[in-house]
C-alpha cells in the first residue's frame, strides 16, 4: 500500500513538476544575449546519451519545482549532449556557470548531485556572482 502510494505520488509529482526553460539557441548565442536579460549567469548543462547519472539529474533534480523555479529566476539555462569546444568536459553530467564574457564562474558541477546538494551549490553561485 505504501509502495503504491509512493509510486503514484512520484508519478503525479512528475506530471506537475516544474520544468526548466532551456535555451533554444547555441551556447555562444545564449551567452551573448545575457546582457539583454535580467539573469546574468548561464547554467550550461552537458549531458550524454546512456548516462545514468544524467538521467538522474533530469528526472530527479531538474524536474523539481523548487529547483526549476529557482533556476528559471536566476539563470539562463542551456543544455547539450554535444562535446563543447570551449569548456573541458571529460565526464557527464557536467554543469558550468558562465558569465556574459564567457568566463567560468566558480567550479563546474561534475557528476550527479542530489536535490539538496544541487540547491546549495547553485545558491552559492548565485550569491557569489550575481550582483
Amino acid at each position, binding site marked *: 500500500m505504501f509502495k503504491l502510494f509512493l509510486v503514484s505520488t512520484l508519478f503525479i509529482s512528475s506530471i506537475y513538476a516544474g520544468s526548466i526553460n532551456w535555451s533554444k539557441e547555441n551556447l555562444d548565442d545564449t551567452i551573448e544575449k545575457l546582457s539583454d536579460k535580467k539573469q546574468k549567469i548561464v547554467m550550461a548543462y552537458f549531458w550524454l546519451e*546512456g548516462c*545514468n547519472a*544524467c538521467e*538522474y539529474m533530469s528526472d530527479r533534480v531538474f524536474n523539481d519545482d523548487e529547483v526549476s523555479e529557482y533556476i528559471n529566476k536566476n539563470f539562463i539555462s542551456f543544455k547539450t549532449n554535444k562535446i563543447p569546444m570551449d569548456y573541458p568536459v571529460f*565526464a557527464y553530467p557536467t554543469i558550468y556557470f558562465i558569465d556574459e564574457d564567457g568566463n567560468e564562474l566558480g*567550479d563546474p558541477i561534475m*557528476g550527479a548531485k*542530489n536535490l*539538496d546538494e544541487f540547491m546549495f551549490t547553485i545558491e552559492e553561485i548565485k550569491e557569489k556572482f550575481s550582483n
Partner: protein
Amino acid sequence: MIYKRLLIILLLLSSMLNAGNSFLMPDQAFKTNIETTKENVEFTLTLDESIYIYDEQLEISIAYGKESTEITDKLVFPIPEIYHETNVHFGTLTIKVPKILIQQITNNSDAVVEFNFQGCSKAGLCYQPMTKTIEYKSEKIAVAQPAKEKKSESGTIADTLASGDVALILITFFGFGLLLALTPCVFPMIPILSSIIVSHSGGGKDMTAKRGLYLSIIYVLAMSVAYTIAGVIAGLFGANLQAALQNPIVLVIFSGVFVALAFSMFGYYELSLPSTWQTKIDKLTLKEDEESGHGVLGVAIMGFLSALIVGPCVAPPLAGALVYIGGTGDALLGGAALFVMSIGMGLPLLLVGAGAGKYMPKPGGWMDNVSKVFGVVMLGVAIWMLERIIPIGFTFILWSLLFFGSGLYLFRLGNYISKVIASLLLIIGIIFGIGVATKATNILDPLENVFGDKKTHLEFKRVHTVKELDDIISNSTKPIMLDFYADWCISCKELEHNTFSNKEVQNKLKDFILLQVDTTANSDDDKALLKRFNLFGPPGIIFWKNKKELKNITIIGYKDPKEFLNIIGKEF
C-alpha cells in the same frame, strides 16, 4: 508532505552518490593495458573501485583496409553484475581476442583491433565512450599453428618461397617437379620423347640405353631452359607470362613448328645441328658414335616446346612460383627455382628415355611407320594449340581432316589390321564432320547437338574492370563466384562443358552471383583484374562470401564436378 517524502527518497538515493568534486580523470578511472601473447591479443581493463562499465557498450571490432568487422559476439566476456537495473562490470576485465580469429577475418593482413567501452562512476558521473586500439601485424610464423589458414595450391608454393631460405626453396622446387612428373601433365611428354628416340634410331642404327638417355637429357635440359627463361622473365618484368604464351602469334608460330616437326617425322627432312656443332658435341659426348649429333637440335626444340605445351597443365605450381618471382623481382632465384623444378619433372623422363633406348625392338621398316604415327600426333598437337585461337567450327574441320586423312593413308596400305584401324579413324573423322555440320561447340563432344538432352549452361555476368567488380562485391548480399575465361583457354571450356553444366554444380551455384572476366583480348583491364588476384591467366575462379574473398578455395586450372564441389564445399 509529498515533497518531504520525495526528499527522503532522494536522500536515500544520494547516499549512493559520493558527494564532492573529487572525480577521477578518465585515465585514472579506466586503466587499460593491451598486450599480444602467443595466441591472443589481450585487453585488460582495470577499473577503479568506484567505476563500472556498461556491458551493453562493450564492443570489440577489427579494422583492416577500409573494412571493419565487429567481433563482440565471437568473444567471451565475464558475466555482468546488475547495478541500478543495468548490466555492468566492476573490477578487472580481461578480454582475449584470439589471433586466429583476427587472421580469419582479415585474411592474414595487418589490422587494428579496437576496444570500445563506456563507464560511469558510482559517484554519479559518466565518462565519454572510450576507444583503445592496438595494431596487429599479421604473422607469417602463424603458419606453424595447427589452425593455420588453408590456402590454395599456388598460395602454398608462394608461401614456401616467401619463407626465404634458398637451399630450402631449391629442394622444395625439385620436390614439386618430381610431384608434377606424377601428374598427367607430363604424360603428353612421354610419347613425344619416345617418338623422338624412335625416329632417331630410324637410320637403322642400334638404339642403346646410353643414347636414349643422352637424347632424354637434351630433351629435359631444353625443357628446363624453357622454364628457366620463363622464371627469369617473370623475375625481371613480373610479366603476365602465361597470357603471353597464349598470344595468338606465339601460338601460330608454335603450331607451325609442330607441323614442321610432323613433316620431319614423315621423313621429308631431318632437323639437325650445323655439322660443325655436331662434331663438337660428338667429341664431348659420345665419341664412338659418329652420327650421334644428328637431330639434336630437333630434340632440343621438342624439349623446349614441350615445356610450353604442358604449361597450362602445370599452371598452378608454376603460377605460384611466378607470383613470388614476379613479386620479389629476384630473377636469379626465380630462374634457379624453375630450373630445378623442371629437372625434377624431367627425371622420370630420363628413365623413360633410357628404357626406350634399351628395350626398343630391332629397327626396321616398321620404324618409319611408327615415326609417321608420331607425325600425326604432332599434327594433332598443332591443331590443339590452334584450337585456342581459331573458330571452333574450323577446329572440327581440322580434326576431321586429320583423322580422315590418316585413315585413308592407312587404308591404302591394305593389310588387315591397318584396315581396321583405318576404319576407326575414318569413323572418328566422320563424327567430327557431323560436329562441323551440326555446329557443335564442344570439341570433346562433337555429337552434343545430335543427341537431344541439350545441356543448360550457367549464365554469367561479364565484368570488365576492377572497379566494376568492386562495385558488385560491395553491393552484394549473395555469395559471388568470379570465373576468368578466355576463348583460347581449353581448361576454361572443359570447366564450362563438364563442370558448370553439371546439375549438382549448378544447384550449388544457384544462389551465387556469377561473374566472368573474358581475358581473350588480354587488355590492360584484363591484366589488372588478373593481377588483382595474382593470377597468371585463366582459368581461375575466385569466391566471395559476405563480401570477403575466400582465398582458401581459389581454384586454378580445370576441376571436374566432383573436385569442384569438394573445394567449394569447404565454405558453402
